């Protein structure tokens, strides 16, 4: 399930409108709509916060690690790169993710 579907499912389970979720999460309804449509891909941290605002918890494991371990793993994978390589990689990833 992609993040937009996951967020919509959590919101509907909580019985919230997009506007109500937006108010709870301190964001704009249009932003919730963009996340749900898949126009914008929320970061893991944003997704976790929005799902918490639905009264649910995004509890999952990636490669046997919990979400905080996942962040640490991502950082550990990034640190061996040079600053230039880190920036190049992030720019390429942003272009790929946000191109739509």
């Amino acid at each position: 399930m992609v993040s937009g579907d996951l967020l919509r499912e959590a919101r509907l389970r909580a019985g919230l409108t997009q506007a109500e979720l937006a108010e709870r999460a301190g964001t704009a309804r249009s932003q919730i709509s963009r996340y749900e449509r898949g126009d914008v891909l929320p970061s893991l941290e944003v997704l976790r916060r929005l799902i918490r605002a639905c009264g649910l918890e995004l509890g999952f494991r990636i490669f046997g690690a919990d979400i905080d371990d996942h962040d640490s793993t991502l950082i550990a994978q990034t640190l061996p790169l040079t600053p230039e390589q880190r920036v190049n990689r992030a720019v390429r990833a942003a272009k790929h993710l946000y191109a739509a």
Partner: protein
Amino acid sequence: MSPGASIADFEPGLVLRALEAHHVRYVVIGGIAAIAAGAPILTTDLDVTPSSSRENLERLTLALRDLDAKLRSRDAHAGVRFPIDADMLATADSWTLTTRAGNVDLMFAPAGTQGYDDLRRSATRERIAGVTVAVAALSDVIRSKEAANREKDSMQLPILRRTLEQIGGRPL
């Protein structure tokens, strides 16, 4: 994605080269600085803090003209032209711009900081996109985002703090 240039146009190296070509004094801050430090986050714009001295604003003017900088606007996708000169740049603490190399935010006094001289103290010289530039310390990026207290900043702060822990507060 924020309004302004298409993400396909985002080439921070072109902006940095234009700034360097005109000998602009500045520090890279924000998402690109955090990424350079090792934070696994994404960004769609380049944030810099230029020195606000008069001569630097003159140099910055030349670089911005080279980059065809315009004001970023939700209503005008291509941006809004404005008179780019030192006097104009001196009238605001921040400018959200769109350029031929993507979106650029100029922040002369980022929240929680005293601006260029403050950030330069802990900045390091790093090679980014083919040019060697001053990059703000991750601790300063965090300090500024904490002070700004915007939603998108507060969401990034946990991973930025974790990155700082994992690099042990060391420079890049």
